[in-house]
């Protein structure tokens, strides 16, 4: 046996040793390993649910595994390790091609998954590999005739090369057909960049295998160059991400490029001979120039955008402040006039100036109600504005929620009955006493009364059930009606400032859209929650307020 003549250094961490005789192995493998894992992870984490992102992650992971396995084969001193990693690299290598084909198919399919039948066809090519990877059909044996620590490749690997070429051709046909089918310019460019990057990477990879096997007398030291397909692939994908927002990733290119530079420089540490530095330095220099240019341009654009946004934000804040001031001024003025008008109408209704003529009574009563509504609307807008600016203070003291709710239902009862609505109030006695520490006035007027008034206003016929109970350490106040209901679109803007249902003003012309916004702020200021439930338009709704007990 020749083994006694071969002196191999023990590998540290499986992949660091002087057994690696080809100069660029660490440079090509470590760069490929880190860059592929990085881009795979960044794309995956940006949107783990997107299929294309998952497949790119799988491709990158298989590539990183391949680079690591190959590095171990270069570095290890143990023949059994060479045999294991060399044999195991076969299913992993074919998985890179299958992932590449899958990725191109997804882009050709406009982001949709391929059929199960197509997946099964791709997987069928793996069957001989899974079954025979451990046999001599894969690796005939270990070459002890020299000290290069090579395994002898068997017919299964020739089969793999044929399948690799088949997958590349398949991907090219799919991409080309989709490219001619697509009419959208961005879609076409995305497909072109991702497909070209993938196909070029895979072609470079297979060419490396075939050239070494059939033209370079199985000299694997040339095999290292095929890994430069990965940075090429990353460059295509990164360009597609930056230019066309592919994979919906922000700033990924800048991060990936910095990492690529760092790993390129890091790889220099593993260079064995000083003369090899010249080649590596040359490659790194080209890398630095291209990537640095892209990076600098993208950072410059980011800074310009941020400066523009900051200037706009400042302008917006100043405009808002001016508008707020104007709103408060107008609000207070209008409220003052409306309050004075209410006072005058109230005096007339109460007979302070003698008995009114019969025909004037309904007119004056309506005017009183309208001026009070007007004052309330202005009050709501001012309160909302104050809440937004944090100018609202709460006077908290212990009070009974049940008593407040009961009184408001009783007051609202007459209006409800005038409309022909049945209104009821129930409180679960098991939850008593309903003592709560909060601002009684604001909870009563702006939350409970607001919700009950809303129900009265938006229920043309039927009933309103107001309830109070204590459950799971929470006071739960609910107003359930058989009114116009809320559709899903309206639910989203229900509790927003000035936001009311799409058709709510057809039912209640006085709706300002501030009532629920104010209620929400008050409830939340007391550590509670408010929500609306409805099965849809015309199906009634339930507003639920929960306070911590």
């Amino acid at each position, binding site marked *: *046996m*020749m083994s006694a003549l071969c002196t191999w250094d023990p590998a540290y961490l499986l992949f660091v040793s002087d057994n690696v005789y080809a100069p660029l192995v660490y440079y090509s493998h470590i760069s490929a390993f880190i860059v592929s894992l990085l881009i795979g992870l960044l794309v995956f984490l940006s949107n783990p649910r997107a299929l294309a992102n998952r497949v790119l992650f799988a491709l990158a992971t298989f590539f990183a595994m391949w680079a690591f396995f190959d590095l171990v084969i270069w570095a290890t001193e143990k*023949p*059994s*390790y060479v*045999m*294991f990693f060399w*044999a*195991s690299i076969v*299913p992993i290598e074919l*998985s890179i091609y299958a992932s590449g084909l899958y990725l191109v198919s997804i882009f050709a399919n406009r982001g949709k*998954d391929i059929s*199960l039948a197509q*997946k*099964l066809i791709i*997987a069928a090519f*793996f069957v001989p*590999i*899974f*079954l025979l*990877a*451990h*046999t*001599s059909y894969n*690796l*005939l*044996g*270990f*070459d*002890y*005739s*020299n000290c290069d620590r090579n395994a*002898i*490749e*068997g*017919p299964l*690997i*020739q089969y793999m090369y044929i399948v690799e070429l088949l997958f590349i051709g398949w991907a090219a046909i799919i991409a080309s057909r989709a490219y001619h089918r697509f009419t959208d310019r961005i879609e076409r460019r995305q497909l072109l960049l991702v497909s070209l990057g993938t196909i070029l990477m895979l072609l470079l990879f297979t060419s490396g295998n075939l050239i070494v*096997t*059939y033209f370079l*007398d*199985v000299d694997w030291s040339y095999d290292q160059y095929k890994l430069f397909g990965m940075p090429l692939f990353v460059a295509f994908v990164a360009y597609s991400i930056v230019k066309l927002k592919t994979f919906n990733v922000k700033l990924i290119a800048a991060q990936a490029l910095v990492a690529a530079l760092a790993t390129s420089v890091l790889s220099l540490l593993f260079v064995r001979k000083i003369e090899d530095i010249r080649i590596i330095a040359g490659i790194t220099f080209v890398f630095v120039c291209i990537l640095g240019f892209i990076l600098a341009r993208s950072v410059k654009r980011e800074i310009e955008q941020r400066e523009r946004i900051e200037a706009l934000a400042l302008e917006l804040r100043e405009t808002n402040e001016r508008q707020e001031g104007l709103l408060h001024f107008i609000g207070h003025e209008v409220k003052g006039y409306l309050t004075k008008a209410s006072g005058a109408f109230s005096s007339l209704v109460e007979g302070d100036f003698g008995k009114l003529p019969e025909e004037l009574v309904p007119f004056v009563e309506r005017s009183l109600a309208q001026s009070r509504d007007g004052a309330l609307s202005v009050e709501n807008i001012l309160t909302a504005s104050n809440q937004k600016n944090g100018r609202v203070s709460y006077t908290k003291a212990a009070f009974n929620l049940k008593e407040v709710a009961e009184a408001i239902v009783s007051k609202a009862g007459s209006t409800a009955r005038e409309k022909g609505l049945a209104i009821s109030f129930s409180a679960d006695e098991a939850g008593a006493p309903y003592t709560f520490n909060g601002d009684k006035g604001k909870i009563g007027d702006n939350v409970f009364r607001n919700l009950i008034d809303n129900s009265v206003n938006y229920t043309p016929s039927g009933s309103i059930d107001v309830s109070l109970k204590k459950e799971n350490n929470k006071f739960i106040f609910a107003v359930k009606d058989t009114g116009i209901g809320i559709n899903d679109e309206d639910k989203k803007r229900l509790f927003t400032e000035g936001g009311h249902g799409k058709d709510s003003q057809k039912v209640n012309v006085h709706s300002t859209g501030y009532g629920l916004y104010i209620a929400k702020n008050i409830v939340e200021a007391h550590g509670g929650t408010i929500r609306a439930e409805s099965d849809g338009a015309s199906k009634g709704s339930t507003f639920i307020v929960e306070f911590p007990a």
Partner: protein
Amino acid sequence: MVGVDKKNANMGTKIFFAVFFMAMFMSIGLTYYHTIVRQDYAVFTDTDAVPNPADFFAYLVNTVTPYFQK
């Protein structure tokens, strides 16, 4: 129903990938057993006896080409 079909399709894909990766891990596991645990592989010590992978391709071409020439 569309929803049900989609659910079944997702289930089919999940099963597919589960079987695929299981097969891959089993294949690698079996390779580990044969190469590292049992060290069950041939060792070539004579340079002349070491087969060249390119020979297989030549063999394949020689076998297949006459078949197409018939």
